[in-house]
């Protein structure tokens, strides 16, 4: 009889303890949702950087706040980078007027400067190409393979990280559409 009562009570006690734990461990102070340091990870503010572009102009990521940004790390020798550039240009042309910007950061430390201009001419790239000569931005974004792309929303928070490629036009469009809505 005692055992029967215990087996009936135990599940109720466990479920009540579970409920209590849910309320005790709730994030009421908002520490999880806000106050995250910049980091190259989904849900974190994008680390800021300033780089000179191929045209000599300086571009700073934080100055693009309010727009949806794609930060794409690439090099001319990298086949998937070549394969996805046309799609990036296509989507850039389609959404530029709605506030979509592309920063195609060239991993210049592992590329040759002289091969960049023929590459951009070949694909007719019209978005800014910042040159990461020292590799500092690559390290800041913990880029382990090329291409790597970070999709950043209007508030400057990374919403999607795509490692490797090539990215299809469908992927680019679906992510950008979602962020612009």
């Amino acid at each position, binding site marked *: 009889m005692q055992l029967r009562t215990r087996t009936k009570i135990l599940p109720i006690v*466990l479920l009540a303890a579970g409920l209590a734990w849910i309320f005790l461990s709730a994030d009421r102070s908002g520490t999880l949702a806000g106050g995250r340091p910049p980091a190259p990870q989904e849900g974190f503010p994008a680390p800021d950087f300033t780089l000179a572009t191929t045209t000599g102009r300086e571009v700073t990521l934080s100055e693009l706040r309010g727009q949806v940004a794609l930060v794409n790390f690439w090099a001319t020798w990298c086949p998937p980078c070549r394969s996805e550039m046309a799609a990036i240009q296509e989507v850039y042309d389609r959404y530029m007027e709605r506030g979509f910007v592309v920063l195609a950061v060239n991993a210049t430390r592992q590329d040759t400067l002289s091969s960049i201009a023929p590459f951009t001419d070949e694909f007719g790239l019209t978005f800014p190409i910042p040159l990461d000569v020292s590799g500092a931005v690559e390290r800041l974004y913990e880029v382990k393979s090329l291409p790597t792309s970070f999709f950043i929303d209007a508030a400057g928070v990374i919403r999607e990280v795509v490692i490797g490629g090539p*990215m299809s036009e469908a992927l680019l469009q*679906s992510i950008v559409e979602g962020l612009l809505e």
Partner: protein
Amino acid sequence: MPADLQNFFAPPRHLVFVILALWLGQILANRSCGKRGVPAGQLENLVMASLLAGILGGRLTYALLHLEAFLADPLGLVSLNLELFSPWGGLACGFLVGWIFSSRKSLPPWDILDSLTPFLAVLAIGVGLSHLASGLAFGAPTSLPWGIEQWGTIRHPSQAYETLAAASVLALFWRQFARTERPGLLFLRFAAWTCGLSLFLAAFRGDSALLQSGLRLEQIAAWAGLVLSMLGIHLRAANKPVEGRGRHDA
């Protein structure tokens, strides 16, 4: 995890742990399913059909949700981009095909779930290891001495907690995999333990989806899972087998 090893298993290579777990889990499930009256070949076919349906269904659901993008680039349907995937769509399609398959082959549902328990237990470890390698499912900030530096903050090693919990559940149930009892009880007990541990450990996660009140959605889902599995245990245990009927009808 040492830096070199972490680089080696950096995304998307972290999925190697999930694939390895699928393979090992299937081997383990095949070893014990015969005792439950489920032929190993049928179980393998069921898992393969569900996995394929999950993969295709996840991609097709994503395409349906982003129809305009796929109309502009139909070849995107066969793209190698793993991001073109809807997890909920994949799960729903996998379950649906698994259910249709087992119904058509007249496979007993509770015995199928019991047979799949070792598979699910190993898969949970694989998922934990893949989180550990990729840095996903990261922990909440902490000042505890065993905290790890991740994304600029000292955090709970929540992926290690998750992996250890899954390994503990596998160890706890190891001897029970070969044991036959009332069909469904093994799976329901496994589900109850898994949901209970998830409910406890989700409190240390730093990436939880939160409700307005700060409550974590994962914990609420785990609590609901715990209620259902406990209710299932109660009903299955109380359901006495009828004289003269097969054990699958019990």
